[in-house]
């Protein structure tokens, strides 16, 4: 597992800015998701809600290594990816509530947020459904020579799908600028990884000769450092790579998944929340290294909270789409 290099003493102003920004981004995702949880529980949000709480460092660490015009693809658990890539919370919430002001005019909902202005090719509700799309985006980047990189987020559950292996083979053959980011949160819906995956995760990528590494997905700097290196490689034409981020979802598979003891223990959940909360880990480090003090972090949290509250307000008051919208956008 790669560790964070110890160049803290020589941290530049830009480094510190990045670390603080990453804290802010993770806080934004956390608070966003807490409000989703609440909206859903109060029956204000239709459909399903898959929370990203606990996994914030992965989306933020990877997306901070990308440029705005770089691409991402996301999953059913996608709010964090979309926010980290630059989506704004008000239009996100509006989409989650099915409102016309949402990123997809309310047509997509929680599992399908897409936003061309931030390079977001879309969240996808088919497990592994976005792996070919990200690979295709990397293909056009190479074809058009525009230097863009694609980051493809998926859970370890997606490794069950054959198409992932077809795409990794193609990407490696053609040296496509794509990073496959596997979020190993240990469970698919209700099943532990040991019951769904045989063998070693990295070996899958290595079998086609792809660069592959594992990183602590609860440490945003570690994720960022690893991702930055792989993105740079991809941009330089050195081909695809695979980044396995070990992480954990703190909540259920979706908001309604409350009684979870039949597939994972309360104790395990508590341990992760107590010892491996990515926000707490990063905050403690920032303070210990004197890059920030507690008051500064509280200030960030207060600012983000206010922004999120405003966004929720906006979404709740926003109108639903007109019925005429229903058969628009079927064809371009």
């Amino acid at each position, binding site marked *: 597992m790669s560790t964070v290099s110890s160049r803290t003493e020589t941290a530049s102003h830009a480094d510190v800015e990045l670390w603080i920004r990453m804290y802010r981004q993770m806080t934004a995702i956390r608070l966003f998701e807490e409000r989703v949880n609440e909206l859903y529980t109060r029956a204000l949000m*239709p*459909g*399903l809600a898959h929370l990203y709480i606990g996994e914030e460092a992965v989306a933020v660490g990877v997306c901070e290594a990308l440029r705005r015009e770089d691409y991402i693809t996301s999953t059913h658990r996608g709010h964090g990816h979309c926010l980290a890539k630059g989506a704004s919370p008000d239009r996100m919430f509006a989409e989650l509530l*099915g*409102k016309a002001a949402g990123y*997809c*005019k*309310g*047509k*997509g*909902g*929680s*599992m*399908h947020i897409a936003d061309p202005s931030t390079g977001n090719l879309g969240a*996808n*509700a*088919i*497990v*592994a*459904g976005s792996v070919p799309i990200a690979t295709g985006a990397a293909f056009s980047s190479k074809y058009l020579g525009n230097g863009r990189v694609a980051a493809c987020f998926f859970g370890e*559950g*997606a*490794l*069950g*799908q*054959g198409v992932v292996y077809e795409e990794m083979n193609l990407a490696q053959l053609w040296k496509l600028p794509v990073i496959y980011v596997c979020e190993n949160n240990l469970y*698919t*819906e*209700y*099943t532990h990884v040991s*019951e*769904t*995956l045989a063998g070693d995760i990295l070996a899958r990528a290595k079998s086609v000769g792809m660069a592959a590494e594992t990183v602590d997905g609860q440490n945003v700097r570690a994720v960022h450092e690893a991702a930055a290196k792989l993105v740079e490689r991809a941009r330089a034409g050195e081909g695809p790579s695979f980044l396995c981020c070990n992480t954990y979802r703190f909540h259920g598979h979706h908001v309604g998944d409350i009684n979870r003891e*039949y*597939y994972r223990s309360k104790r395990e959940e508590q341990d992760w929340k107590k010892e491996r909360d990515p926000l707490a880990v990063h905050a403690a480090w920032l303070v210990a290294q004197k890059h920030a003090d507690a008051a500064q972090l509280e200030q960030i949290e207060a600012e983000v909270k206010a922004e999120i509250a405003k966004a929720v307000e906006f979404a709740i008051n926003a109108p*639903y*789409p007109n*019925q005429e*919208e*229903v*058969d628009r956008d*079927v064809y371009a």
Partner: protein
Amino acid sequence: MSTHEVVTREITFAEAIREALAEEMRRDSRVCILGEDVAEAGTPFKVLSGLVEEFGTGRVIDTPISEAGFTGLGVGAAMTGIRPVVDIMFGDFITLTMDQMVNQAAKIHYMSGGRWKVPMVMRTTLGAARRSAAQHSQSLHAWFSHVPGLKVVLPSTPYDAKGLLKEAIRHENPVVFFEDKMMYKMKGPVPAEDYTIPLGVADVKRAGEDITFVATSSMVQVALGAADLLAEIGISAEVVDPRTTWPLDEQTIVESVKKTSRAVVLDEGYERYGVTAELAALIAERAFYDLDGPVRRMGAMHVPIPFSPPLEDATIPTPQKLFELAREMCGRS
């Protein structure tokens, strides 16, 4: 619905499915279940709760998220002495199994000159209205109905679900069984004793004189709801449920339309090139001279199912829409 002089309980659609599986698994040790989160979780809809406790993980088998893989494995297992019931969580994911079902399962018996058979069941879901958006709301049963070699079952009541599923499991051919997600909690009378319902026999869910509604799965409730509304204004609607799209009980449908001389066909699949088209063609071909006017159809609007509640609601037939159409067809608008 056929009446039985035996002990009948009110159970839910989900319980009927679970009972059918449990009884068949007790009867035949070759019957097993393969799918994602089917064991301890009992599926996200909890339809299979309790089965793993009785039959163990050797027969209620959790798979990785590999729809093509475990469906194809099911085909091979069915050819070689197992009777797998393959669980595809959402009907939308049958797309991932297409080669296994269409080029393999459906063709093997014929291509082998009748030497191999594939006694396999695929259980999956259909139906919108859960605010689950475009990749979790489709009703794609027309696709399988289109392919020779497959049989397609669409139960609309707990009674039908149990009898048809038991029949499907005992059947010698690949059968695809579509369950409406919105129906799992619906209750209905189900006899306690063993029974099966043959594939290819329609059921008249309500008798009537003035107009026929041929409705499948989720649309049976819509048709019954509209029939209630019509009764209030003196129009008597008959509701015919084919129960299987293939084999298709043509005779029951045609006889009903000949009697009433008006027909609307309803199905939750996309209206274009779907089940409604096939049923309307059947009526036009075989009851044309008995009709007072054109056959009408209602299905899902030709759009990906939207997430936003007011938009989603506009895409599927409702009792009110059907009521208005039928009233107009009966010259009463």
